[in-house]
């Protein structure tokens, strides 16, 4: 369902042209659990932005669920993000003035969903991540782990085809990190496709497949030994 064909991404930085991705071919199927690893500057963030439809490739084709997204307009990409991608960010990226519930409802606003249905689905998503009793808390009234759970609920509320997590445990202590990864393991077990961008081997070890990016290319693509859940 994620199919990257010979993707090249070039940036112009001042007078310099930076080659962020130098020909990437990748296929990720339904219900895979993938870790994208690599040092900073390797191009893994660029790859994540492309998979998340925040950006389009300079060359090559990106086919998401059978649809070529390489040439979509900005607003068309916005709709694809809204329906197909659930983002989880390193620094949570919650809206500070809104409650947990309002944060989770936000993606459904852009889907033109009636408020009652929006609310019902957001409540279910928050219950799913174990925050059914924190609906009206604002981000600053929640712990780091709870904030990231809200972010996960927000990512899941629209039932996206991919949960795309960018260093989801980067701002969390090891115990909370383990909790979040356990949540990801659960979601994967329930059939969710999960892609995690990380530089921590511990985190990558949760995934079934590890893709290593270096200098804008995929240098390693390995299946992990199955773990006990």
């Amino acid at each position: 369902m994620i199919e990257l064909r010979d993707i090249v991404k070039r940036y112009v930085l001042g007078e310099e042209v930076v080659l962020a991705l130098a020909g990437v071919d990748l296929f990720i199927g339904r219900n895979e659990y993938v870790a994208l690893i690599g040092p900073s500057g390797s191009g893994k963030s660029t790859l994540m932005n492309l998979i998340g439809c925040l950006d389009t490739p300079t060359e090559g084709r990106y086919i998401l669920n059978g649809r070529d997204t390489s040439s979509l307009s900005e607003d068309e990409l916005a709709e694809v993000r809204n329906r197909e991608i659930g983002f989880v960010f390193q620094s949570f990226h919650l809206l500070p003035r809104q409650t947990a519930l309002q944060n989770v409802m936000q993606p459904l606003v852009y889907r033109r969903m009636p408020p009652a249905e929006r609310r019902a689905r957001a409540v279910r998503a928050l219950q799913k991540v174990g925050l059914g009793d924190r609906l009206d808390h604002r981000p600053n009234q929640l712990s780091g782990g709870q904030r990231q759970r809200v972010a996960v609920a927000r990512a899941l509320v629209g039932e996206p085809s991919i949960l795309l997590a960018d260093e989801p445990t980067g701002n969390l202590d090891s115990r909370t990190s383990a909790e979040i990864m356990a949540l990801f393991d659960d979601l994967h077990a329930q059939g969710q496709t999960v892609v995690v961008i990380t530089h921590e081997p511990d985190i990558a070890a949760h995934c079934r497949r590890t893709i290593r990016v270096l200098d804008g290319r995929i240098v390693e693509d390995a299946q992990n030994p199955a773990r006990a859940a």
Partner: protein
Amino acid sequence: MKARLLRVNSLSVIGEAFNAALASLNAHRLRSFLTTLGILIGTMAVIAVVSVLQGFSESISNQFSDLGSNTLTLRAVNEQENFRSGRINRLSFDDVDVLRYKVAGIERVSPVITAQLGVTSYRGRTATPQILGATEEAQDVLGVETTIGRFLTGSDERSGRRVVVIGTDVRDELRLPRDPVGEYLLIGREWFRVVGLLEKRGEIFGFSQDNRLFIPFSVARALTGTFERPSMEVSFTITDLTQVAQVRERAERAVRLARKIAPGKPADFEIRAADSFVQRFNQITATATAVLAGIVGISLLVGGIGIMNIMLVSVTERTREIGILKALGATRQDILIQFLLEAALLSLLGGLIGIVLGLLAGMGIAALIPNFPPAHVPIPVMIAAAGFSALVGVVFGIAPASKAAKLDPIEALRYE
């Protein structure tokens, strides 16, 4: 596929953006207030001044409304020179007869003499009201009403009765009883019996309309002397309202003839509609309002620039938030609408507060100036002021909102 992607913004999205805009304004209450202060003061100024002007204008119109537009007034015109040389030009009694008998289309003729008879006194107290000699027609033509007793009658006129109808100021100044009918006043060297009390009319430009009294025209004429031409005006009503211009022209020609003014020479009299004063006043009010609108336009422009400035700051501050919304699927239109609504709301709030404060200020000003009519603002003006302030927000919100809408989601998410 494109058609499916072109989504129409439903009401619920606008409602959501409205809530978000309110929340964001509420989060920076002081800043929001200071930002909209320009709009607030502009709107307040316009509402205050309009309320005072409108109250004034309405009171003038009301005071003149009893003088119908079918009433014309003939009066003598004097150049500055006439006053210096002492050869003051006046109307003659013949002019009255010309209007009465020689001009078709005139309903009633009411000549009024301003008589200089001297002091008016009652039991040793004295006053100097305006002494007017009038016929019974004055009641209809000038719209004079009595609250106690009666007005002058045709019989008073024919028999030359020494009777007087007085204004309320005269009664109060001379300390006549509340019902002064039957009392005797000394006007000049003649005794007059009070037969009626005029309805109170209030003031125009601070001049009381109640410090006057009416005596029969024939009596005034006799007492001012046969040789001297008294100061006189003739008001007359027209039978058919649609014929005002024609009757006026006929009257002008007849009076020219009677006064032996050679063709082509300027007339030494004028015939004016009684409400031309109201019209002139309304012109002044309209001019003042236009000038005011210009000043308010400038102040709203300045206020609008203030809003644009703060909205630009706000967009920069919320860059990351915009990035998040875009990652969640907000289109450029979604972001645009949210920021436009925020600017419009900010400006509208300023406008609404300004309207309320402006009304209070107008009432305060009207109350502080003695004898000033109460302030009054027509509802449409308030609606227009509110609408205009919201419009200012939208216009000056366009630049910041489109800046927000155009942000690149990746850059915006990375913004610290």
